[in-house]
């Protein structure tokens, strides 16, 4: 199989499992993001793929060949480090030429390939500069050119944008996506930034405590998360829990805190009496005007509000249900928020997502 297959890899430090029995595969040309909070094992997993960390158990297979115990230099994987790790004593040209020189390629071959790689990241004009004479964004492009110039099997990126400011980051995200389409390589991208993950990836694997909690396309994970952790880590969610009291066509009714809620499901509904949790995105909750009704309703008081131009971000205290964060588009609302005001929140039966509680 073309691509990388990770099966049951584990890495223990003392009695802490940095990576715990992880299996996932990446196809040629795919953009896979390892997303997770710090300490979730995403960087350790990447370092295991690169060969800097040895797996205690499990196997790595690259294009059908086992690479579990190969040293990093024998794996032929491109890597962009956090902070870039450019060689400070070498010019941009020599930095990019490095992987070709250690592969003993001819001088002409090196010159042609380095030019092409620098063209790809639009840095041809700066070939003679030293890394310290470049801006953060330019350094990051040199790191990309250096990691791609020797036609690696895969490109590994360890939080490559974390050191840049927000505007530059957005620019470079677009550029990385363009680059990915152009070179057609598999990219494995590590980040803790869920927005970055959503906007760039073909597939996201969400990690927590050394395990992959869930993986799927960005839409899958945002629209249909299976766990409360993912529902809250990718985007934001409010949670309502209770126990199932009644089955209905295409859904069920559950009750929690003395209130009955209806929830639609695609699959089979949970058994009567079972505990359920649903996650609700802030944008799927509305503020009901007097006389308006919704399939699910909840009363509360406004404790905080922010005006963000395109939307109001409200925090509503719903008594035993805790705080709800709600976002209301400003253009369709005549809302005049006032702290302490009583509010009725409403959402449709299709708005909630049933998640496994952890």
């Amino acid at each position, binding site marked *: 199989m073309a691509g990388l297959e990770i099966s049951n890899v584990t890495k223990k430090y003392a009695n802490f499992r940095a990576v715990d029995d992880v299996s996932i595969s990446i196809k040629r040309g795919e953009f896979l993001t390892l997303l997770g909070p710090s300490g979730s094992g995403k960087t350790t997993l990447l370092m295991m793929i690169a060969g*800097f960390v040895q797996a205690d158990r499990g196997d790595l297979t690259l294009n059908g060949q086992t690479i579990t115990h190969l040293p990093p230099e024998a794996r032929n994987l491109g890597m962009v480090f956090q902070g870039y790790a450019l060689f400070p004593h070498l010019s941009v040209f020599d930095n990019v030429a490095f992987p070709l020189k250690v592969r003993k390629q001819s001088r002409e071959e090196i010159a042609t390939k380095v030019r092409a790689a620098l063209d790809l990241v639009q840095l041809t004009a700066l070939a003679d500069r030293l890394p310290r004479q470049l801006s953060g964004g330019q350094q990051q492009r040199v790191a990309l050119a250096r990691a791609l110039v*020797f036609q690696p099997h895969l490109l590994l990126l360890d939080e490559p944008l974390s050191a840049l400011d927000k505007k530059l980051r957005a620019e470079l995200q677009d550029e990385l996506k363009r680059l990915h389409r152009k070179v057609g390589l598999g990219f494995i991208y590590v980040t803790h930034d869920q927005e970055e993950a959503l906007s760039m990836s073909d597939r996201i694997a969400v990690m927590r405590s050394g395990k992959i909690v869930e993986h799927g396309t960005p839409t899958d994970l945002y629209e249909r998360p299976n766990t409360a952790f993912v529902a809250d880590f990718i985007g934001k969610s409010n949670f309502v829990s209770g126990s199932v009291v009644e089955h209905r066509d295409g859904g069920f009714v559950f009750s929690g805190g003395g209130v009955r809620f209806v929830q639609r499901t695609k699959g089979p509904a949970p058994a009567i009496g079972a505990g359920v949790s649903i996650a609700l995105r802030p944008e799927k909750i509305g503020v009901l005007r007097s006389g308006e009704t919704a399939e699910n309703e909840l009363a509360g008081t406004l404790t905080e509000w922010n005006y963000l131009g395109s939307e109001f971000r409200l925090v509503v205290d719903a008594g035993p249900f805790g705080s709800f964060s709600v976002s209301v588009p400003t253009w369709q609302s005549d809302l005049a928020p006032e702290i302490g005001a009583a509010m009725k929140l409403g959402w449709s039966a299709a708005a909630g997502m049933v998640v496994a509680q952890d």
Partner: protein
Amino acid sequence: MSVHASARERRAGLSLLAGTHTRYWLLIAPALFMLCVFYIYPIGRVLWMSVTVPAPGLGNYELLATSASIHKMLLTTARITMVTTVVTLILAYILAYTLVHSSPRTQRWMFLGILIPLWISVLVRAFAWFVLLRRDGLINSVLMSSGIIDTPLSLIWNETGVMIGMIHYMLPLGVLPIYANMRDIDQRCIAAARGLGAKRFEAFRRVFLPLSLPGVVGAGILVFIFSLGFFVTPALLGGGKTLMIAEYIKVQILEVVRWGLGTMLAATLLLLIGGLLAALSRLVNLRKLFGAG
């Protein structure tokens, strides 16, 4: 009115400034006085005597070109200094490399081992080498009794002895600048080199070694200059047969009382070191090398 006022204020400010200046000068005056009396004046005298004793003129300096015994001594000094510097740098590099790649705990112990000799008097250290290097010393007796050699090696009262003692003295001075430089090398660069296809040794040769060179140059300057004018160890371990410039000067001044020749050699050494530092400061940033800015 307001113009006058501001002029007055400015004057007041100036005199206040002058006041602070005077105070600063007063504070450093004792140190400055000591420096002039005990350092600048004697050095001036030495330079002066080198062109006036026994007769005014450059007669003493002509000896540099003509005297065979001076040639021999200069050659010995150059040879010992070079070998000491090169061997010290190689050993210091290995030590510093091990040091930066050790755990913090091991590093603490290694540092103790490197620094303790620095705190022990150079005299004590030279006498300690006697015990080890003598004909019937520890090293020779162990080698003899184990049958590796049948005549004792002459490890002392010659150049070998001088070099062993000097390298031992210089080692900490070599390790510290190299270590300081290596500590600042980003380890991710080495990892990046490996990831880009360089084998362990190639990553060292192409990335770590060039990045550590500034530290080696700094340590080299330090050790070379220290070795050039070194007195105690060569005098004790050389046994009077291996004369380096510092001991030669001492002999000229204290024993054969040729002040002119002695001061000429001292002045030559001073100018040589000054010249070397000036030349090197064009190649490397000396201030940065020795830890400033």
